[in-house]
Structure formats: structure tokens, C-alpha cells
């Protein structure tokens, strides 16, 4: 059995999640993340812990939400109702104090890139009380047509396979695509063309500009054995070194994790559809099945009950049922 590091030292975002919590209690579930930019530094709050959210702490220059991996069209035992759980996630967003500015979807919007799957997501997300939504594709969104359907819907104003950048309240956002032209035996890939574009895009930005990068597959090596990493991420991250505050938001692994490396904070979001096992804790990264009667009560619950130092974090039950 592979030995994996089972804890991180930080819970600096105060959302009560770290590796140890995960591996101990499989607290993989969640519906989304509220991100608040304050003084140029991003804080994130799990929507599953909404009840504990201090409105003052969640106030800032800019707030937005991240959801991920809705896998519309998935109908296997791990979650036969991905429509229902996505709707529940939207309800959580709409219950937030103060409307988030916009929504980021970090890919695997659909399960099989089918037009009707995209339609379903679009219809459900129309119910979210946000002004705008931004998307990057996951590998499931480019599975049958190399991303044609995705680009027709979300590609306006983007380059290549859908990469793009925009500015909001002084924060520079960059959406990257690392799920196309994957090579045998490899990980996620950004590719030469996109890296050149990124270097150019960031060149004009002052080092004091807070940067948020979002992409589907993690840009840090979570678990390369399962393909949970990006081949040429180091190149991309080198362009981000000059900035004082960089946040990287990813999906793909269907569980929340955080890591801090120098000026960069990495986050992965939970899925709104089904959980996947912690790295190396199963034979493969396939969907984790829980008994049907438990599914709704576990999706959306962040049952983090770990103890770090003297500080015990409370268990919060906030389910989708």
C-alpha cells in the first residue's frame, strides 16, 4: 500500500477542512464554495457550513461561488439524481447572505457532453441568484466531440479550447483548459499555445493584482497515479510567481482539499454529483457508492470532526434532503 501524507498543517481559510479530516471521515461531500476577496486575499467557505458562516467574516470586496463536477447525465447507483443534487447546491447558493457576484463552474458540467445534458445544467443554473457564470470544461465535457458543444455554449470570447481571462473588482481571473489533447500515460495538459497565451495575459498585470486561476484538473500533483495533476502546470505556475496573491481553484477529484505553496493557495471543490475516494484509498478513482437512503443526507454534508491541536471543530449537518 502506498504511503500518503495524511495531513496538512493549514486550515488558514477557516473552512474546517484539511487532509486529515478527509482521510479520517471521508468528508468528501459538499455543494460548493463561497469565495470572498478581502484586502486582495481570498478566503473560502464551504457552503455545507453555511449555518456557521459569520456574515462579517464573509464580507469583502468581492464574493463568488464555485461549483464543480455536476456530471449531468450520470445515473449510476452512486447518485441516480444528479439533477436533484445540483438543484440543492443552487438553493445553498441562493441562501447565502448577500448575493455572490458570479459563479464559476470548474468543469465536468456534463457526464457525456450531450446537448440535453448541457441544456439541463443551463436550465438549473438559471435559478442561481448570480449575475454571471463562467465555465471551463472537464474531460467529460469534451468526450464526444473534442469540445465543440461546450464551445458553442460557453466559448464566446474565449481562445483555443475555451481558455479566457477577465477582471472583477481589481481581481484578475484566468480560466484554463487542461483536458484536451491528453497524451497516453500522461496527466492533464495545458499545451504550448495556452501557456504562451497565459504568459502574455499575465505580463501586463501588476504584481499587486490578486490572481484567481481556475481549471478542471488540479494544477498541483494531488495523486499522479490516478492522473490527478497537470503535466505542464509548473510552467504555468512560474508565470504566477511574481504575484503576491494567487488562488488556484480546481475540481475533478470530487473532494475538497487545500494546499499552500509559497504565494499560491490551491483548492479543489467537491462534486455536486457523487464522491470519489481519497487518493490511494481505493483500487481506482471511480464513484463511491453509499446506500441510497443515505445519499441525500451525505451529499452536501461536510462532516469534519477532526481534532487538530487543541481545537476541535464542530460537526455541521447541512444536507440536501
Amino acid at each position, binding site marked *: 500500500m502506498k504511503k500518503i501524507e495524511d495531513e496538512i498543517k493549514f486550515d488558514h481559510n477557516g473552512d474546517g477542512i484539511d487532509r486529515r479530516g478527509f482521510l479520517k471521515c471521508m468528508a468528501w461531500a459538499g455543494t460548493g464554495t463561497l469565495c470572498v476577496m478581502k484586502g486582495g486575499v481570498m478566503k473560502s467557505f464551504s457552503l455545507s457550513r453555511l449555518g456557521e458562516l459569520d456574515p462579517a467574516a464573509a464580507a469583502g470586496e468581492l464574493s463568488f461561488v464555485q461549483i464543480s463536477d455536476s456530471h449531468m447525465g450520470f445515473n449510476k447507483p452512486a447518485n441516480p439524481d444528479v439533477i436533484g443534487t445540483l438543484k440543492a447546491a443552487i438553493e445553498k447558493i441562493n441562501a447565502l447572505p448577500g448575493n455572490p457576484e458570479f459563479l464559476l463552474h470548474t468543469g465536468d458540467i456534463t457526464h457525456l457532453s450531450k446537448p440535453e445534458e448541457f441544456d439541463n445544467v443551463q436550465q438549473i443554473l438559471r435559478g442561481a441568484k448570480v449575475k454571471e457564470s463562467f465555465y471551463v470544461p472537464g474531460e467529460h465535457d469534451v468526450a464526444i466531440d473534442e469540445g465543440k458543444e461546450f464551445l458553442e455554449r460557453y466559448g464566446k470570447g474565449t481562445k483555443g479550447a475555451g481558455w479566457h481571462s477577465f477582471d472583477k473588482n481589481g481581481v484578475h481571473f484566468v480560466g484554463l483548459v487542461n483536458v484536451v489533447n491528453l497524451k497516453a500515460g500522461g496527466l492533464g495538459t495545458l499545451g504550448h499555445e495556452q501557456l504562451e497565451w497565459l504568459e502574455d495575459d499575465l505580463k501586463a498585470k501588476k504584481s499587486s493584482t490578486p490572481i484567481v486561476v481556475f481549471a478542471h484538473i488540479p494544477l498541483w500533483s494531488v495523486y499522479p497515479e490516478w492522473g490527478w495533476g497537470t503535466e505542464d502546470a509548473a510552467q504555468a505556475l512560474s508565470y504566477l510567481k511574481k504575484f503576491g496573491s494567487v488562488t488556484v481553484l480546481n475540481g475533478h477529484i470530487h473532494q475538497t482539499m487545500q494546499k499552500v505553496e509559497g504565494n499560491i493557495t490551491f483548492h479543489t471543490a467537491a462534486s455536486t454529483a457523487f464522491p470519489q475516494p481519497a487518493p490511494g484509498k481505493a483500487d*481506482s478513482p471511480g464513484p463511491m457508492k453509499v446506500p441510497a437512503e443515505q445519499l441525500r443526507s451525505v451529499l452536501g454534508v461536510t462532516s469534519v470532526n477532526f481534532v487538530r491541536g487543541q481545537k476541535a471543530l464542530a460537526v455541521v449537518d447541512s444536507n440536501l434532503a
Partner: protein
Amino acid sequence: MKIALRILGTSIFLVGGFGQLAGLRARTHAAPLPQQMAHEMTSEVKIDNFSFSPATLQIKAGTKVTWTNADDIPHTVVSDDKIFKSKALDTDEKFSFTFDKPGTYPYFCSLHPKMTAKVVVQ
């Protein structure tokens, strides 16, 4: 149409010896027999737990290989050299390709590129 069926029937009759072998195979659920007529040669690859099995498939030229996805997650079967390429296979969906020329054919899942395997054709 009837004539065509009759001819087909005759040809099956003529290879009766193999028909018996095929019958044996059906009863025992054994793996495909190595010594089969060209038009009967088939082989299977199972996609399960994010891997192809067998990881190396040895076949004779002319064999039709069928991949079946047993995972809850879609996978693809894509030749490294772009010789064959399946669509995204959902659970229980199949993809077949007939290998006419000897050689080694490495392939992978383009959605989960850590999944690699090869077909060796003699």
C-alpha cells in the same frame, strides 16, 4: 436472400469441426480458442476499475477485438498512433476493431490517459 443464407449454412457445415469446438466453448465459457478460422477470430478486452485487461493482448492477424466498458465512468479506446479511436463508451458499451496487420498497437483512454495498454498482433 434465402440462397445466401443457405450458402452461409453450408459453409458453417463445412467447418463442422470448428463448430464442435465452438460448442465446447459455449458450454465451458472458456477463453477464445487460439486456433480458430480467420472469420471467427475474436478477442475481448474488459475495461474495469480504470484499467484495461489484459493490459497486453496477444492475437493473430485478422482478429476482431472488442472492448467492453464495465466502469460507471465513460472511457475511450484510442490508439497512440491514431489507427483506431472509439467514441466515449458509457457503461456496458462496446467498441470493436479488427487487426489485420502484425505489429504492436499501444492505446490509451483519452479521458484518463493514465490508462494504457497494448495489442500485440502476430
